């Protein structure tokens, strides 16, 4: 590589005669070249030239949200479901600060996004101009990278870099801050670069062959192996490779909250989700395995509990991750493999096929027996016999039973309902479970759902939420109507901020400090006011018929207000600071 220049830019994708274009026009051409189909955004002073350029084209559909936070969430949800880079467009100042939550949400879950932000004109930067904020400074800790474009001649290359950085390596959001004068100044446009190489950014894809071989030898010699998979498997689109490997080995497998669907939940080799609200068999296997293969997972505090307790049992750890800084961050790893999950898994499969390596099947039999013993405890049981109230778990189970095997996406917000959705909806396919795992952002559910529905009009999109979370982006019901994105919202309404209430019950002696919401809106009327259908469901026996009816209203957004048991808690539960196997299994453990 030529190292005398910071980057090399190859010839433009579209040759042809050169022309003078404004920054805004170049931006739009760049977005078209990146094959962007949708932009979620909100106009304002600094981005008016960009909006003017968007008005004069028809290949990119712009969606006008009702709050910038939702624009970023919708683009994020779209990216999670499709694997494409999500694009949002906001104005300077408050537009940016409103977008910050959305950007941080995407960053924590490594979601590829490009967020275009308007900025005050370059001559006004630093003078406390109207709607000015230091966008690059504010977003720096929550982006993979960000750019301030000060010269219109740099715009095309910067946009190319932004998309390249967002989607390659460990993906993440990239902010491109464009001052107003840059968007209206003209320059000769010689085409959008087809490719860009940066000397300072060259993410690896292929894992180290020697490490992979060592890892396989360790895996084959394991007596109590366990495969622990995370969001990285989905980000790398390596679900098929994971399935092949797990099936070749016959080893038990788990997926974190971010990785659900990578391996089919209905397969007996799947032990369910691990972690704070994980299943007994998933957590016990984590603690008692002798070889742990971590694939695109990061040993998060919500997954392994107290790291000291986790380290009490000796085990060998193999960790596949594209980001070296994820390896040996919280847990010391024996065999690190830096590389793209898909590439590494493919190589593993190939090596097994070409060699005579075989798993230790006799030891495996005993290990499976132990696991089946844990599984028999049926840790997800709840009081099914009690039909005098609506159990929130029952709503999710019913939804699962009705939609199993169909083309369905489930989004959620954050709290108890999120955990119940993750526990009781068995995800068999990747990219079907869309939630905010890392940042835990309440309010993502509706924007995620509408982002997905726009791109997947023929799929059914359900948002499992709570009456607390849903109010954090409820204004987007208006966007759903304008852009005809009919989603089904299932609010598990227990009148409490349920997860807060649960912690207060367990750890704060039942002092329910500000976790009860009085004066909730009438959600049925609210949905109707926004032009949608509202349904109130108060009895157990009405749950299924209501869902059936809502699904029949294919072209309508339906808000289902389920009045659920206000005392129900999420179990199993590993309290903060406790070890992974120190689980509370039900209210009798309190």
């Amino acid at each position: 590589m030529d190292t005398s220049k910071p980057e090399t830019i190859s010839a433009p994708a579209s040759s042809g005669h050169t022309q003078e274009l404004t920054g805004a026009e170049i931006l739009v051409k760049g977005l078209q070249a990146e094959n962007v189909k949708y932009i979620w955004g909100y106009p304002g002073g600094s981005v008016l030239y960009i909006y003017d350029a968007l008005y004069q084209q028809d290949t990119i559909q712009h969606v006008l949200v009702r709050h910038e936070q939702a624009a970023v969430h919708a683009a994020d949800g779209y990216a999670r479901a499709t694997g494409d880079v999500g694009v949002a467009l906001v104005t300077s100042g408050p537009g940016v600060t409103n977008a910050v939550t959305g950007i941080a949400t995407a960053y924590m879950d490594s979601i590829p996004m490009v967020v275009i932000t308007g900025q005050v004109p370059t001559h006004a930067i630093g003078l406390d101009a109207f709607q000015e904020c230091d966008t690059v400074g504010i977003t720096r800790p929550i982006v993979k990278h960000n750019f301030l474009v000060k010269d219109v001649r740099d715009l095309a290359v910067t946009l190319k870099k932004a998309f390249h950085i967002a989607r390659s390596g460990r993906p993440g959001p990239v902010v491109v801050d464009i001052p107003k004068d840059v968007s209206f100044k003209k320059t000769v446009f010689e085409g959008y670069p087809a490719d860009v190489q940066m000397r300072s950014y060259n993410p690896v894809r292929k894992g180290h062959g020697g490490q992979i071989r060592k890892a396989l030898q360790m895996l084959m010699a394991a007596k109590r192996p366990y495969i622990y998979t995370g969001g990285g498997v989905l980000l790398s689109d390596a679900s098929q490779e994971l399935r092949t490997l797990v099936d070749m080995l016959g080893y038990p497998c788990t997926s974190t909250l971010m990785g659900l669907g990578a391996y089919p939940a209905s397969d007996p080799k799947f032990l369910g989700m691990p972690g704070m609200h994980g299943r007994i068999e998933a957590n016990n296997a984590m603690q008692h395995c002798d070889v742990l293969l971590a694939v695109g997972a990061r040993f998060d505090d919500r997954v392994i509990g107290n790291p000291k307790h986790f380290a009490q049992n000796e085990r060998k750890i193999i960790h596949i991750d594209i980001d070296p800084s994820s390896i040996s961050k919280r847990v010391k790893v024996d065999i690190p493999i830096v590389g793209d999950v898909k590439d590494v898994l493919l190589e593993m499969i190939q090596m097994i096929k070409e060699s005579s390596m075989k798993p230790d099947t006799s030891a495996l039999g005993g290990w499976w027996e132990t696991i089946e013993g844990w599984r028999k405890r049926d840790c997800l049981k709840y009081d099914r016999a009690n039909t005098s109230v609506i159990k929130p778990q029952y709503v999710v189970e019913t939804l699962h039973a009705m939609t199993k095997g169909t083309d369905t996406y489930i989004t959620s917000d954050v709290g108890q309902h999120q955990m119940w959705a993750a526990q009781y909806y068995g995800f068999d396919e990747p990219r079907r479970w869309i939630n905010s795992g890392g940042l835990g952002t309440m309010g993502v559910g509706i924007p995620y759902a509408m982002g997905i529905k726009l791109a997947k009009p023929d799929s059914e999109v359900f948002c499992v939420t709570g009456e607390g979370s849903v109010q954090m982006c409820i204004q987007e019901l208006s966007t759903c109507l304008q852009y005809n994105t009919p989603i089904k919202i299932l609010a598990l309404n227990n009148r409490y901020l349920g997860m807060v209430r649960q912690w207060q019950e367990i750890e704060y002696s039942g002092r329910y400090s500000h976790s009860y919401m009085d004066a909730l809106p009438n959600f049925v009327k609210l949905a109707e006011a926004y032009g949608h259908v509202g349904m109130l469901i108060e009895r157990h026996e009405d749950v299924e018929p209501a869902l059936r009816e809502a699904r029949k209203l294919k072209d309508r957004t339906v808000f289902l207000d389920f009045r659920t048991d206000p005392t129900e808690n999420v179990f199993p539960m590993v309290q903060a600071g406790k070890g992974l196997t120190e689980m509370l299994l039900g209210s009798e453990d309190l």
Partner: protein
Amino acid sequence: MKHIISLMLENEPGALSRVVGLFSARGYNIESLNVAPTEDPSLSRMTIQTHGSDDVIEQITKHLNRLIEVVKVVDLTEGAYTERELMMVKVRAVGKEREEMKRMADIFRGRIIDVTEKSYTIELTGDQGKNDAFLEAIDRTAILETVRTGACGIGRGERILRV
């Protein structure tokens, strides 16, 4: 343990704040930091002196590598290296002190680079231990002002950090 980390980064606005922001956001220490462009004006060379356990230093270098504008990172303390710091000390120098200060500067191979009737400014170069030792050796009450660049390091012999 003390570590000296050297990095090459794109000489672009904001690159420095990304490095500094990383240290503060993740709770790592910076004892000193020194940065300037290199013979290639598109590149800056930065020297960071920090301390931490091996695990922490490993994370620091990994996270530095993750920054898009960072081209190369090396922990100089992993091998043979030379470290220098420039210090300028303005000291009171009246009467008998003038001779004494001159002598001390000579012993430490410092140079007097500014002289007034009442003061000397002494320039010293060395590792930080030497510069500390000079400050210990002279009369503390005579020190009017000190300024130090922080550590600047380079590998010995064939150990070369370049892009």
